[in-house]
């Protein structure tokens, strides 16, 4: 087993599986975020956040998510370092004129670091406040979940206030676009890595991957932008 994961293809397998796992997480995350756009003063979003915070199965997934990120980041850096060594120090004086190679595919680490930097801010702004330090904005509010009056944290107030700052919205849009470009290569690449691709599926996966990537990127961006412009006050 160690020789499998230690091999070049094995290391790529870890990148691919962790990447696909993070992709599934993104789908759930964007779905919950889309509740922010329901104009009900945040009731539905708070119910969603409450569900995410209290359901045992989801709390179990949280550490798994942290591991997924850690594996993806550590191996991503490791692979990139190894690949630079394999390439060697000598550069081509006449440059690289190979056509048809996407920019994203050549800059996955830079794009990943963009997403990672955003992630640090994101975790500090929400996860830390909701799980560790607390925040006055999170003061409990009562909503009705399926007819039952329930007291929940006012996550909506925290998100809404955070998105009232222009610089935060700008950083979110940059992070989301970085993610979209990362996934415009990452999506199909993950399937290629596990061997699920051929002449026909490659075309399908690249089209699907681009649609998915920009759905995620524009989805996350749009929610932040709309919150800033139309959901304040």
């Amino acid at each position, binding site marked *: 087993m160690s*020789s*499998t994961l230690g*091999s*070049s*293809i*094995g*290391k*790529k*397998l870890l990148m691919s599986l962790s990447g696909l796992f993070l992709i599934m997480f993104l789908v759930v995350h964007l779905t919950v975020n889309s509740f922010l756009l329901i104009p009900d003063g945040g009731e539905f979003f708070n119910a969603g956040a409450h569900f995410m915070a209290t359901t045992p199965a989801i709390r179990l997934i949280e550490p798994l998510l942290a591991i997924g990120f850690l594996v993806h980041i550590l191996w991503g850096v490791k*692979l990139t370092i*190894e*690949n630079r*060594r*394999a*390439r*060697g120090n*000598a*550069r*081509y*004086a*006449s*440059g*690289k*004129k*190979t*056509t*048809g*190679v*996407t920019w994203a*595919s*050549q800059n*996955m680490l830079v794009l990943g670091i963009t997403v990672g930097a955003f992630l640090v801010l994101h975790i500090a702004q929400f996860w830390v406040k909701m799980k560790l330090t607390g925040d006055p904005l999170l003061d409990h509010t009562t909503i009705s979940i399926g007819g039952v009056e329930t007291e929940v944290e006012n996550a909506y107030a925290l998100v809404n206030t955070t998105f009232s700052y222009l610089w935060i919205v700008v950083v979110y849009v940059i992070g989301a676009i970085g993610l979209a470009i990362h996934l415009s*290569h990452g999506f*199909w*690449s993950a399937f*290629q*890595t*596990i*061997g*699920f*691709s*051929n*002449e026909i599926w*490659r075309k399908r996966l690249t089209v699907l991957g681009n649609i998915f990537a920009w759905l995620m990127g524009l989805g996350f961006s749009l929610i932040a932008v709309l919150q800033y412009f139309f959901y304040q006050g």
Partner: protein
Amino acid sequence: MENTINIKLKVWRQAGPKAKGRFETFELKNISTDSSFLEMLDILNEQLINKGEEPVAFDHDCREGICGMCSLYINGRPHGPDDDVTTCQLHMRKFKDGQTITIEPWRSAGFPVIKDLIVDRGAFDKIIAAGGYVSVNTGGVPDANALPIPKPNADEAMDAASCIGCGACVAACKNGSAMLFVSAKVSQLALLPQGKVEGARRAKNMVAKMDELGFGNCTNTGACEVECPKGISLANIARLNREFLSAKAQD
């Protein structure tokens, strides 16, 4: 009517593996646009020899695109500006009068320079050797239809088998990865009944040797496929991943 061009060459010169290399420039006059790139280099070397200077060392053999011996990174691309050809098949009509042509060796840690434009591609031979033997049943000649092979499989195997081991894929790769080459060598046998018995072992050993020799990890950029003179497809890399991972899963 014969057209001729005058060109300026910027050629990588390096006395030996450890020596420090540098570019040297040469002017060539009246080069026929009908000549091949290697013939142009022959003309250069003849002039150098007549002047009592050291000729430029470069690899070549068949000069018809089948042996994989010629290499050269020309004006930013392996095998030069034309698509789907080797350097020996590249014609001088692809260049303009007065153009400067930069010629460099393959650059990758797995392919160290031996002299001038010649690099050591022995690593590819070691990977092939690691693949081991293929069992073929002996005895009488089998009937033509005794071993049916679906036409699409036969075609894909033949396409994979057209890899000539030139190393352009490695030269083009930002990761110094040899995956396109290895995937072609595994695919040409993976699709056929011959050599099925050794299939799992072959995939594991060739990948292990490729890693051991320090080639990089493929990130699916696809530069290799664009620069491969034989149009070897990235689909072969997906197949190699499948073959390798399922071989490991069986252990």
